[in-house]
């Protein structure tokens, strides 16, 4: 068995249950610690997979560029509320597939916090952006080549996916860190209150993501394919 598979199995079947069990045994706000650990442990298999794949220099450099673009893309827009990061991560997922998409999302989130501040939100952001890249890769990676022709239906689907994905999955996941960090005890009412408070923000986030997907996916994918032909990349 590959070492990475072994590590993944360990983390899923031993670490996760152990953490959950310990979480129930401790009092007070231990659920915060438990939830964070669970998040980290769910990401571990992805990281081990990536390690064992030993990416080539070109691939690694391209992935690094996608991560940094996602983080730095923010400053390109003269609109303070326009969050392009999720959109860029999703396009990267479409271009490189689900697994790499997850890595790009997670690493972007982690790296960006070195420039702002690491905080209780870091693992949640990693997970949320990771999932954004993962899902988009899972659904749209196979249509990657067709996207170059700018098909309106596919772009429409993508923008709907981007918006719904953020409002339903990614935004709430980001809000989870707030829920766990600021609640005195776990209750659905509190969680719903925080989610409701975060909804407007998630909606603008979703709109910017959908816009990024519609406008930017074709240029980015065609740039990648141009480079592939120019330098015989990833072959």
């Amino acid at each position, binding site marked *: 068995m590959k070492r990475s598979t072994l590590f993944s199995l360990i983390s899923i079947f031993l670490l996760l249950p152990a953490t959950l069990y310990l979480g129930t045994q401790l009092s007070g706000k231990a659920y915060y610690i438990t939830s964070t650990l669970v998040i980290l442990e769910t990401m571990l298999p992805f990281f081990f997979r990536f390690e064992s794949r030993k990416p080539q220099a070109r691939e690694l450099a391209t992935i690094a560029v996608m991560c940094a673009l996602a983080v730095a893309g923010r400053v390109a827009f003269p609109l303070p509320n326009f969050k392009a990061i999720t959109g860029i991560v999703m396009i990267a997922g479409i271009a490189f597939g689900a697994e790499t998409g997850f890595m790009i999302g997670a690493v972007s989130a982690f790296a960006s916090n070195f420039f702002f501040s690491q905080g209780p939100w870091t693992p949640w952001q990693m997970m949320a952006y990771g999932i954004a890249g993962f899902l988009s890769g899972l659904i749209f990676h196979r249509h990657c080549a067709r996207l170059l022709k700018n098909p309106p239906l596919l772009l429409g689907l993508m923008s709907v996916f981007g918006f719904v994905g953020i409002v339903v999955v990614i935004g709430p996941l980001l809000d989870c860190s707030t829920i766990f960090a600021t609640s005195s005890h776990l209750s659905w009412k509190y969680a719903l209150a925080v989610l409701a408070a975060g909804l407007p923000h998630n909606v603008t986030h979703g709109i910017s993501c959908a816009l990024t997907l519609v406008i930017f996916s074709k240029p980015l994918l*065609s740039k990648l394919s*141009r480079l592939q032909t*120019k330098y*015989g990349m990833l072959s």
Partner: protein
Amino acid sequence: MAHIHIEDLSFSYPGANKRCLDSVSVTIEKGEYVLLCGQSGSGKTTLLRHLKSCLAPHGEKQGAILLDGAPLEQLSLREQAAKIGFVMQNPDDQIVTDKVWHELSFGLESLGCDQKTMRLRVAEMASYFGIQDWFHREVSQLSGGQKQLLNLAAIMAMQPEILILDEPTSQLDPLAASDFLSTLRKINTELGTTIFITEHRLEDIYPAADKVLVMDSGRIIAQGEPGEVSQVLWKENHPMFAALPTPVRAFYASGAEGKCPLTVREGRSWLSRAFQNHPPHTLSPAGEETVSEASPALTLRECWYRYEKDSPDILKGVSLSVPQGSLFAVVGANGAGKSTMLKAICQICKPYRGKVELFGVPAHKQKRLFSGCVAMLPQDPKSLFVKATAQEELAEMNTDTVQQERVAALCEISHLLHRHPWDLSGGEQQRLALAKVLLTNPRLLLLDEPTKGLDPFFKIQFAAILQKLKDSGVTILMVSHDVEFCAEYADLTGMFFDGQIITVNTPRAFFSQNSFYTTAANRMSRCVFQGAVTAEDVVSLYKQNQEG
């Protein structure tokens, strides 16, 4: 046994009908300092890249490359990585990691060195290259020159036997470039590392090379010592001759006899010897330079600017007047604030004191500043590229096809319009960017370091375009490090120092009054002539005085 032996190497890119390398045979001995020169696109980079298997382009290859007598392919990637160092053009993109110390150790990490060895080698390199002061810094805080030095040090940490450099100084300012080249010289003489380098700016490096190779359309057309090669190029009347150092050009063009001078010092002694017995009767070049009396296109009056409230002033009372229809060059050291001055003219930086007037109207009152008034060509022409073809780039500026065609013809890019901007060569990119800028129909054109990284042929072509623009009435303000270019083509030259324009004069008067900040021709000839600032000046004065 030769260190590197290239035997009858031919190469063509897939799908290309022309050979990019054509029966190249070269022998390089251990510890030699070899300079490879040639016009852009002559196949220099392709040849260099073949000396390292992992960088060699894909295509059809014939011939052999032997390293210490053994075929290069027999060496594993790991051995090649350790033995052959490769420094590329762009200082920024070559850096992999975020910290200086990490970058120094990157190669050693890849080779799987142990902690003890790494510690020692990294320490050694940091001390040898004088990096210890910025050892813990982030690479983003380094200057271009420091970055390129770091790239060199990071490769030297692996203790390579051969160092290959592909135009390493083309993106650096002259001071950093000469620093880099002297470090390279030190490595060659002290460590005995074999060096194989390509360069555009030959002034410093040409005399220092043990061997010079000249490439033209994939062939080696001359090789040997610098002296021999210059003679061959002169005899064949080869275009590459124009790229040789000033003393060499002046010597051959003036038809002098004897040993060709390579450096300014040798040039000086050649001239003093030539006029030892009969002092020259004509001292200065003919033709008075006249200062244009035209009304100013641009006036700066006592402009002060700083980036942040608490940061030091960058512009400290700049005053400047650029007459209409002239090419005004501003020279000065790196980081002196020259680019900031251009930004102040564009109103991107608004001076907190002082006035900027364009064609007699205060700049902030110009309603449409960037259409038909002023425009700037940035230092990196690629900053202006946002589309997938050159045609679309032009269309972004102006949808009028007649205008597009006119500008494309003026900038000599009509044949390139279907190409992707990023696939063009440096000179072509420069001209495409210029075309984009010109589509705003500026009356005042600002150029920020327009000759950076251009080879001498592109420079000549570029200067011709500027002349045409001037003829059509455009005023040009250029900021540059390239004293040779300014001396040759500017109408007026100003020196920027400490946030001000210190002095303004015609290039001849300007450069002949300076003793350090001047052209090689002037430094070489000031012992016998006055006011000779270009190789042509020296040649004509030499001829006049020899005849008379």
